[in-house]
Each structure stands twice: as structure tokens, then as C-alpha cells.
């Protein structure tokens, strides 16, 4: 079906073709047929896109709004450095110039919305811990 975009003029007797084209153009628009007007953002009702209408695997890295955070410093021998990450944190980048051990944090977060851990340094070292997380807005 093709978008016909009917134009009516005053006077002539309406034909069934004209009226059927007008009716069919509603379907042509919904079907995104050639030349039919596309729905712009303002025409979409709030919360109208649901999990059902979103195509499988449609939400990729470019659709998810994320931010980056990092912390860096130096630690001395046998020092613990504690990290608390943002909610919705993906797996971080842990870097230590010298070997270090990943350990638990000794202060509990309220729940999984407060991800955290620590690094134990078996020798003096600089470190850099970066993470990406889903933004709140």
C-alpha cells in the first residue's frame, strides 16, 4: 500500500476511490509505507513503549545512558584501600602497579545498590580503579 495523500476540491462528486484512499492512508501511515508521514517524538504518548513493543536486544550500549567515575592514589605496604561504587555499576577496571589482593569491604552497604570492595596491597603501589555505571537521569 502506498501513501496517496488525497487532495479534495470543491464541487466534484466524491468517488469511492477518493474515500477509500483516505481510509487506506490511515493504514499506510501506521505501516510506514513510502511517503507516509512518520510519527515524531511529540506524537508518542508517555510510557507508551513497553517491554513488549521494544524489539529484542534493542537496548545496546548507545541506548543506555552511562557515566564514568574513577579513583586513584598510592598505597603503602599492607594498606587496605576501600572503594564504594555508584549504583548500577558495571565491572570496574582495577589497576595496581604492584600486585594487590581484592578483598571485601569492612563496612556493609545497605544492599546491592551500594556496590563496594577493597584492595589489600602486599607492597607499596599506585592504583587506579575506574568504573562505568548507568546514569540516574
Amino acid at each position: 500500500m502506498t501513501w496517496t495523500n488525497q487532495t479534495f476540491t470543491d464541487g466534484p462528486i466524491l468517488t469511492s476511490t477518493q474515500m477509500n484512499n483516505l481510509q487506506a492512508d490511515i493504514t499506510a501511515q501506521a505501516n510506514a509505507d513510502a511517503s507516509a508521514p512518520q510519527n515524531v517524538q511529540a506524537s508518542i504518548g508517555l510510557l507508551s513503549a513497553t517491554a513488549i513493543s521494544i524489539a529484542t536486544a534493542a537496548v545496546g550500549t548507545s541506548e543506555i545512558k552511562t557515566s564514568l567515575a574513577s579513583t586513584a592514589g598510592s598505597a603503602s605496604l599492607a594498606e587496605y584501600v576501600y572503594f564504594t561504587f555508584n549504583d548500577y555499576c558495571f565491572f570496574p577496571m582495577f589497576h595496581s602497579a604492584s600486585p594487590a589482593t581484592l578483598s571485601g569491604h569492612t563496612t556493609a552497604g545497605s544492599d546491592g545498590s551500594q556496590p563496594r570492595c577493597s584492595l589489600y596491597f602486599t607492597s607499596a603501589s599506585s592504583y587506579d580503579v575506574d568504573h562505568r555505571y548507568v546514569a540516574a537521569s
Partner: protein
Amino acid sequence: MTWVGTIFQVGQELHDTALNAVNDDITAQANGDTGAPKQQVGSYATGSITAAKIAASAVVRSKLATALTSTSGSLSVGENVGIILSRNAFFPMIYVSAQRTTWRPHLSDGGSGSSPRFSLTAVTAEASYEVAYRYVTTGS
């Protein structure tokens, strides 16, 4: 273009103005013009919204279906406990009551990144632990 929303009366003569307004209303609706009806949930076919139709960075935290869960317990010195997280887990909150309770690779292979896991070992002192995390659910 403005949404007209023409209402026809019985016996009314049809003129070009009214009929063209009906035609133009199709475009007015697509353009989101003032007064035009908005597309609602049921008007979208299953799977019709693809990546190309989702604006960049449109998916923020509130748009993701997530749940929180946790597991906890106690470890004696030298004891190791395996922690298996849900698929699509975000980085966890790993709490231990004693330092030198380290996290290490899990002793069982999860097979793929769909079964994230690690283990905790109490190296020098007994310790209680709690691992809590958020994960993406299957949605609704």
C-alpha cells in the same frame, strides 16, 4: 499544521475543506501537533521499537527492570565459599567483617558470562560476609 478533528453531521454537504482536514489530520497526528491524539501502548506491534527508534542515552536507571538480592554467611579461617550471581548482575556490594577476606575465582566453571561467580576466602581470621547486588531482570 493543527489537529482539526472534524465531526461530520448527518445531511451536511461535504466540502473540500472538511475532507482535506481529515486528510491533513493523519499528518498532524504523526507530527504530534497540538490537540492530536498521542500513540498509546497498544498501537505498537510487538517488537516494533528497534534500536534505531530509541534515542541515544534514553535508557536511564528507571527504564531498566532490576531487582536486588543478597547472600550472607560465616567463614572459618581458611574456609572458602562460592558465590554465584544472577545473570546480568551489576558489581556487588562485598562486605566482610574481617580484613584479609579475599575474593578469588570460583572453583566451578560457570561456562559463560551468563553465570557470573567468584569466591570468598577467610585468610587470617574467621569472618562473616554479605554479598548483595542488583541485576537486570527479564522485565514485564
